[in-house]
């Protein structure tokens, strides 16, 4: 099962290296990682998605807690959190394919952000499932390039 960890860290040089380095040192695989400033400019928030079947989440969390610059870690559950990721995808769209691509974009409320004779670039924001579903539908048309931000997530309500 996938786990989304929301990690509040001090916004200091080298902190991301420490977090990423810990995953390397303990041989934990990262599925995705996103980092940015939090509501407090002295703090950053890192969202990491890991496969909980492969590594005990408990052990990952405890090791993270040992880093001096890590202040708080939440293991966000799907039923009480919201999550999203942003995807840019360039898909082949010449001839008949163009209509298909536009239809898929419409269904997923993706925005067309670039276009030329042969291809379209779509931008979509959504949960990991939604992004994956759109990629699957675009696959037969020919995906030329994919860039994704990785999941960011937040607890619901007052958290």
């Amino acid at each position, binding site marked *: 099962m996938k786990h989304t960890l929301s990690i509040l*860290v*001090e916004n200091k*040089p*080298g902190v991301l*290296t*420490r977090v990423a*380095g*810990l995953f*390397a*040192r303990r041989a934990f695989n990262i599925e995705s990682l996103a980092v940015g400033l939090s509501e407090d400019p002295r703090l950053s928030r890192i969202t990491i998605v890991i496969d909980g079947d492969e590594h*005990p989440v*408990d*052990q990952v969390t*405890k*090791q993270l*807690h*040992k*880093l*001096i*610059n*890590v*202040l708080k870690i939440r293991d966000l559950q799907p039923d009480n959190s919201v999550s999203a990721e942003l995807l840019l995808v360039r898909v082949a769209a010449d001839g008949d394919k163009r209509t298909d691509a536009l239809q898929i974009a419409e269904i997923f409320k993706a925005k067309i952000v670039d276009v030329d004779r042969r291809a379209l670039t779509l931008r979509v924001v959504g949960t990991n499932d939604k992004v994956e579903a759109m990629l699957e539908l675009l696959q037969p048309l020919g995906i030329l390039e994919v860039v994704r931000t990785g999941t960011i997530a937040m607890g619901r309500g007052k958290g």
Partner: protein
Amino acid sequence: MTPDKKMKGSQALVAALEHEGCEVMFGYPGGVAIPFYDALYDAKKLRHVLVRHEQGAAHAADGYARATGKVGVCTATSGPGAANLVTGIATAYLDSSPLVAITWQVRSDLIGTDAFQEADITGMTLPIVKHSYLVKSSADLPRIVHEAFHIASTGRPGPVVIDIPVDIALGELAYRDADSIDLPGYRPTVKGHVKQIRAAAKAINEAQRPVLYLGGGVIAADAAPEVLRLAELRRLPVATTLMGLGAFPETHELSMGMLGMHGTVTANYAVHECDLLINLGARFDDRVTGKLKAFAPHARIIHADVDPAEIGKNVEALIPIVGDAKHVATGLVGELEGMEWPAERTAEWLARIAARKDEFPLHYEDPKDGKLAPQLVIQEIDRLTAHDAIICTDVGQHQMWATQYYTYRYPRQFISSGGLGTMGFGLPASIGAKIGNPDKTVVDISGDGGFQMTMQELATAVSYDVPVVVCILNNGYLGMVRQWQDLFWNKRYSFTCIEVQPDFKMLAEAFGAVGLLVTEKDEIEPALREALGCGRPAVIDFRTSAAENVFPMVPAGQEITEMIGGPGNKGRKS
């Protein structure tokens, strides 16, 4: 409060170290370290010991820390100097030793340009430090030093690196002693949860076959008196790890000695058969557990550790307690004192353990090649120092014999690289231990392989008049690897024979130390008496038998019942 005083960063560092109570540091100068060494030249309280190689500085500081319980401090210049500390920092990390390593760095504006003697030491040490700093401003120095000492010495101790660019040492600041700590992300839990302690006490009270399994955490938390009280209160048989040697007196009737790969038959079978295993400050290391699935198969497990990440890492505990050994043992004693307990509950168990101690003592035979039995040499060191010396070791067979044949009675008496297994640790660590305990006899038990890795530190011992006694168990082999080749690799002794080596007696004399050679049994005592009594650094070259192996032995990854030299497998001795 001291008024702010204008000074340079280098002077502020000396002041801050002195403020932390640092009396001695071990180091080696170099280009970008010159400003600091210039300030050190005027230091009134802080003493600096010049080693002969930076690795020696790290091990000496580590040995000082382990022997005294205080923070050990070492320093080295940028690039190669700092890189030479790495093995020592990793050694301290794996054994949770409080070390502060100060490295010097090229000028801030040169960082990243591949400048002369530039190395990214904070990057290189990232996986082997508890924390590290790259100092950005001279004004931060007092705070960073204060934080570094706090982090290194509290919770689960460990090494902290402070990397200081040379311009920070030259920059001016208004110095004031730092006394407050603001580390929102660092709050170690030292007090165990009352409910968990109560549950553990209940389990201890009910157990019919309990075993107390002690690790280095007991020594780090200064918990030996509380643990002794706990063991005596419910007559708990005690097994210690290598790092835990000295946490419980081996002269005590409840002591079963060390457990694990080269542990005693009694300790290992007690763990195998117990119905309750009480782990205080140990980490279920693979050298202790052997095959994890078969470890303590009948036991309920209590695991108390100050590091929550250790709990559940290797073995699932029925009753986990996050807290240090001192608080937990005190709490357990408090609970148990209020409970009824019939002594006959564990009587059968204690009788079984006593019988096994009689049946399976550690033993060895006189080597057939006429050379010295290494075990005998250690027994003689034990006898002639009256179980009272601080023993430092390198890594390998001699280290295991030192665990088996010396009698440890008090914490911080046995100083050895347990986790990382660093050859060359012994001599520099013994120098640090002796400097920290000038009134104690300090003996470094080493092998001919390990000694040659850091033997240049004899010059340090001689120049600072640090009278450590180095006992080399010289069998002309890298003995532990040879032992594995002997037992598991068809006696193919690939590159483990090191018969061509210096004459250690002459070598010691060349350094200005006392050198002695012992080849016969009856020379052991006079040589040891001379070395122990001469008041100078001394080296004794004991010519021991290469055919001797360390037994008992649980082969790596096997069950305890597969022990060579144990009840189920007596015959497989070499």
